[in-house]
């Protein structure tokens, strides 16, 4: 199997707090992997470790390895800005910059040194099309992104992420602030994006996990209790704790 990310015996601490415990997980290329588990179980910490977002927290400390295409992303030689270009992230609440729609998508390209206007325009259009937003915004690209609906803002953030052509897209509950129609659009988008990108999605919505992902990992108290094909996890999980969580029997 061709793995994009391999996590080996990852332990994460914030001060003395042991957040992730011996987490090992292999993420397949061009596949959607869902991370599920109750609040505070370490899912978000886990994905934030995958593009070194936790580095921004002083008390963060980790043991174990995180390999992207076989290379350790915590190697001192790794350029973090470059890493975050390769591993993009979409957050729970849409967070467009208070700029025009065009500038939001062009931002990453400019940060990464692309100056040619034609190239930028072409990439902005391609990204907005890939994010299924182009038709809705093509006539108002110079308007503020803040004027878009929540669902449109989230698709704009996805367009912004894919503009820099990452290998991996991390999504931390990308639909939890959206209405069902917008959620459907994002899920459709995930289906279309997976052929080009490796996607890891944190979700509290079990049905969403079953709909969008091929592979699922269940986190509990900082550990991965069970991981495997999504169908297997949701139809015949091996571990009683997984069964209890997904069937809502956690007291």
């Amino acid at each position, binding site marked *: 199997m061709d793995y994009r990310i391999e996590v080996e015996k990852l332990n994460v601490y914030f001060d003395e707090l042991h957040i992730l415990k011996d987490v090992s997980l292999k993420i397949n290329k061009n596949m959607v992997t869902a991370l599920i588990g109750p609040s505070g179980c370490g899912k978000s910490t886990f994905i934030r470790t995958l593009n070194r977002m936790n580095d921004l927290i002083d008390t963060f400390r980790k043991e174990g390895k995180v390999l992207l295409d076989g290379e350790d992303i915590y190697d001192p030689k790794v350029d973090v800005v470059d890493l975050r270009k390769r591993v993009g992230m979409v957050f729970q609440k849409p967070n467009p910059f208070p700029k025009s729609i065009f500038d939001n998508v062009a931002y990453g390209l400019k940060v990464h040194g692309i100056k040619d206007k034609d190239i930028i325009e072409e990439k902005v259009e391609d990204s907005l099309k890939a994010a299924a937003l182009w038709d809705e915004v093509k006539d108002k690209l110079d308007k503020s992104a803040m004027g878009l609906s929540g669902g449109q803002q989230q698709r704009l953030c996805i367009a912004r992420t894919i503009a820099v052509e990452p290998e991996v897209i991390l999504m931390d509950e990308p639909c939890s602030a959206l209405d069902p129609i917008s959620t459907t659009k994002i899920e459709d988008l995930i289906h279309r994006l997976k052929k080009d990108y490796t996607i890891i999605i944190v979700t509290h919505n*079990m*049905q969403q996990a*079953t709909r969008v992902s091929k592979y699922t990992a269940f986190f509990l108290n900082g550990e991965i209790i069970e991981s495997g094909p999504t169908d297997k996890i*949701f*139809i*015949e*999980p091996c571990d009683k704790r*997984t*069964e209890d969580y*997904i*069937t*809502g*029997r*956690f*007291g």
Partner: protein
Amino acid sequence: MKKRYPRILFQKRLKELRDDLEEMGETTLKAYKKAMITLFDYDEELVKNVIKTGEEIDKLNYNLEHKTMSIIAAEQPVAKDLRFIESSLKVGSHLKRMSLLAANIAEVARHIKDEQIPEKPMDDIKNMAEIVENMVSKSITSFLNQDMDIARELHREDDKVDDLFDTALNDITKSMFDEKDAIYYMVYLLFVARFLERIADRAESIGDRTIFMITCEKP
């Protein structure tokens, strides 16, 4: 102290589903017993009763289907809950079919009530009926109690019923050869043997469904 789970309403609805199937199972078993009684000792009231029960079970099965759809839509069940619900639908439809087969047997009783059926084929039917009754009862118990041991026994018993069916077929055919006038009612008896064999198959299927529900594997 018993652990309290969230989704109490969901648990209640699953329990209701189980209760409905228990009721359907008991009603089907009763109908089957009555059908066999009236076959050997004709009673028009019993015949009517069994036929009516078949129609009732059909309605109960519709209600069960509505309930399961409503649970799936509202609760979006997964894992063992999903497997239970899926199995409930199948078991409901097996029970419906069993009760309709019981009604078919009761109808045959009407046709042969005045005939002098030879002893041998009648004994074959009696032997089959006894095992089948046991199978119907066991199938319902195995599903409701999620008992795989009982479910597995049904396989062996179905084999016995199949063998007895072959015996009955031979004996019935022989009676037909012996007395041409008997063909008219012996054909009905052959139907009964077939109906019993079908009921046994349904009972076995409920057992298989139970095993699949628990293990997620084809028995």
